């Protein structure tokens, strides 16, 4: 079981860091088409922000996280990606061929552009929530570390 750090300076500074990390994660996510980054990297950043929140949060904040909900969100992420792939089957094309998704945009290249964005959204969900699930399990289930010397 992990407890918050004793020093109030560490706690306050960590709290200050959380919001900029989340903003940076959104920047990385939406600029994945133009600069290094994308769903995976943004997912790890969002996961890191949640981990910091879990580390310095009050008891009420920490208990508002639950492994069940985090796991659900991870499943939703993989669902977004897989359903997007399956949708293009409905539009009489290959699996994951975003160019066939005519409801996204007029031009075929634009459809691929938005298809990539939606797929990256799924990847970001999966990566961030899986990281938080693993952290949550390792850090907050007391039985794991109960009998250590």
């Amino acid at each position: 079981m992990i407890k918050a750090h004793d020093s109030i300076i560490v706690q306050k500074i960590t709290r200050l860091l959380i919001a900029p990390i989340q903003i940076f994660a959104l920047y990385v996510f939406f600029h994945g088409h133009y600069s290094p980054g994308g769903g995976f990297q943004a997912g790890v950043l969002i996961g890191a922000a949640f981990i910091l929140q879990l580390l310095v949060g009050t008891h009420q904040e920490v208990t508002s996280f639950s492994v069940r909900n985090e796991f659900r969100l991870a499943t939703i992420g993989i669902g977004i990606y897989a359903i997007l792939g399956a949708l293009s089957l409905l539009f009489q094309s290959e699996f994951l061929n975003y160019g066939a998704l005519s409801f996204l945009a007029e031009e075929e290249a634009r459809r691929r552009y938005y298809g990539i964005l939606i797929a990256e959204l799924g990847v970001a969900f999966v990566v961030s929530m899986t990281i938080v699930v693993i952290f949550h399990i390792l850090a907050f289930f007391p039985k794991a570390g109960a009998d250590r010397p």
Partner: protein
Amino acid sequence: MIETINIVLIVFIIVAGTSALFVVELISATFLLSCFSFFMAVLWAVLQAPDVSFTEAMVGAGASTIFLLLALFGSRHTVKPFRWNWTATAALLVTVALGALFIWGSWDLPAFGSDVSAPNAYLSPYYLDNAYHDTKTPNSVTAVVVDYRGFDTLIEATVIFTAGVACLLIMKADQ
């Protein structure tokens, strides 16, 4: 200049990787592995692969260090001093033989950055020429990873998801 940076970075990587094997405390080994990942990230950036560098810096140097530390804090572990015996000698011989085999095999690989190797001859130029036209995405890495090779990425996401499932199952077995 770039060559010097490469050599310095590779020396740092080798030192960090080997000293992680030899330090006694596992926490020190974890931080040395974190250093290893950080130098790898810098090396990727020098080799002009910013996407890989970004991922290595966050997953290798950040997230995996946190997980290793948590696993160390949450588990009971003892460190035995290393003693040289015949098993260690056999392991050393096998490792040296395997390494020699890899180095021998690497002679047949095309030179680094060669323009006649299979991926550089037709695959990369195709992606670089057509990625913007096909997907309107200036960063061709994103286009390759999520569109041209979308199936790969879907399965990669499933692999990460499986790691979470495995963690949950272990927790359930513990309760």
